[in-house]
């Protein structure tokens, strides 16, 4: 406050500097919201959950390895990678949904918006916090894979898992804002994830069945649906670890998809927050 007053009195570009001060204040508020999001997750034992889950995934992979008679390295990865990926998704979805719903039901959002922060900024700050949670979860759950898989395939796989979890976290944020209850929001987020992973197989089945199935009329709908859900089947593939790393351009394509869909989900959440009453 003091510096703003000094600037007003002594500099000619008062408006510009005042704007900078306002931006700095807003940035601090956003940082606080993002930090609080992470702190809340930490108090909810998210980090312990992710670390314990990583240990369990590692134990499951070691168990599978002990059963294998040949290709023990491949068996370890074939179990550790997909199970770790699925568990990471569940942790991120549950953490995100629980946080958003709690904020909504306890009315702390009203308190947060009393600060000089717009609704869009609040959503963006929450998304930033969840993205950081997703990134840390990805690194923890990738630990069993990083321990045994060759580089750079393991690094690309981990980066892809991080991007996948960021998309899921922001989609879960939007879903939780809209639905407002934990059970429906978690179910919807997981259904969305499964759909995004398997829609290409459903489409393949639909196209194969066109000649004899009564559901032929649904194929255009499924094709349309495929256009609007992210291609998560292309993310975090186990065969990168088994057959060799994909090109960096593959990771670039995944990053573009993640950025695009995260932005889309973020805008959807902002639209919902702007139109809905603050409850």
């Amino acid at each position: 406050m003091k510096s703003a007053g000094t600037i007003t009195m002594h500099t000619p570009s008062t408006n510009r500097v005042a704007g900078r001060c306002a931006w700095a204040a807003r940035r601090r508020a956003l940082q606080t919201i993002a930090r609080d999001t992470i702190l809340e997750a930490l108090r909810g034992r998210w980090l312990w959950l992710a670390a314990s889950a990583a240990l369990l995934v590692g134990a499951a992979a070691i168990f599978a390895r002990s059963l294998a008679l040949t290709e023990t390295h491949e068996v370890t990865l074939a179990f550790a990678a997909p199970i770790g990926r699925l568990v990471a998704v569940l942790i991120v979805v549950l953490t995100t949904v629980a946080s958003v719903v709690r904020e909504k039901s306890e009315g702390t959002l009203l308190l947060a918006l009393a600060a000089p922060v717009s609704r869009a900024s609040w959503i963006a700050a929450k998304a930033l916090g969840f993205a950081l949670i997703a990134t840390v979860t990805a690194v923890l759950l990738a630990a069993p894979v990083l321990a045994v898989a060759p580089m750079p395939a393991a690094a690309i796989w981990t980066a892809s898992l991080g991007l996948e979890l960021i998309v899921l976290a922001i989609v879960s944020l939007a879903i939780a804002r809209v639905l407002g209850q934990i059970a429906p929001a978690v179910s919807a987020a997981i259904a969305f994830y499964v759909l995004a992973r398997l829609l290409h197989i459903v489409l393949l089945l639909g196209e194969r069945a066109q000649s004899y199935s009564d559901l032929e009329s649904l194929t255009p709908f499924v094709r349309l649906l495929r256009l609007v859900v992210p291609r998560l089947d292309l993310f975090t593939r186990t065969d990168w670890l088994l057959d060799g790393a994909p090109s960096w351009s593959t990771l670039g394509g995944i990053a573009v998809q993640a950025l695009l869909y995260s932005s889309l989900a973020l805008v959807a959440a902002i639209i919902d927050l702007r139109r809905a009453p603050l409850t």
Partner: protein
Amino acid sequence: MTSAPPILVAAHRIAVRHALALGFAVLLALQALWSGHLGNDSALETSPGAPPGMTTLRLASLDEPALAGYAANLYLQGFDAQAGALLSLRLADAQAIYAWLERAYAINPRSGYALMLAAFDYAKPAHLHDEASLSQGESAVEPVAPRLLDLVERAFADDPARHWRWLAHASYVARFALHDDERALRYARRLREAPAEASVPRWARELDSFVLNRPDATDAQRALLGGLAFGTPGIEAKEIDRLASRLAEPAATAPGPGTPRQLTK
């Protein structure tokens, strides 16, 4: 109204706490007894049942073919060790075993796990199963052992660099267990004619002279297992142990006791 003295209230609370703890312990003990009473299903299943379809496996594994393939192999390999007892593979449903192995390979063709189970573990018991079926007059049933070996042959055609060693073993089984020289030589020829980039070692390319032409099955098995153990790049210690333990077992039945037979070309 007079309230109870504080000492009685405290005693009541302690009694309730103890009663709850005792109740919990009793219920836990009952649960353990009930679980122990149920036990494991001691009746051995002789068939692993039909394998799930390809699409079912892909959907169930969230489109993770490596996971689905290895899980199918591990399920099948654990099938003959049910409830802590060993099921004789001769009693098992060989048709179902073939179906599982074919499915496991089809969903994860980069892996040779199913081929190892087919050539190294299941082909000989399947042949005994075929012979038993034949002797019981079930001639309509297609023999399983040749189909298992042909699965290995098809896999080799798809990717000779990955799967040559199990074709070498399949050739040995065809010659000394199935006594199907034509099939054994066909596999040996495939190995000899493999492209250079498949990196098939010399001993495997010359399988007919190195292994198949030996008149004694035990001698041939020793040569084959030695080749597999010491002539396979990147072989794992666990596999070497398995090959070594196979050396201690009797080899495939040679044709006619003590009557060495030449390989018919």
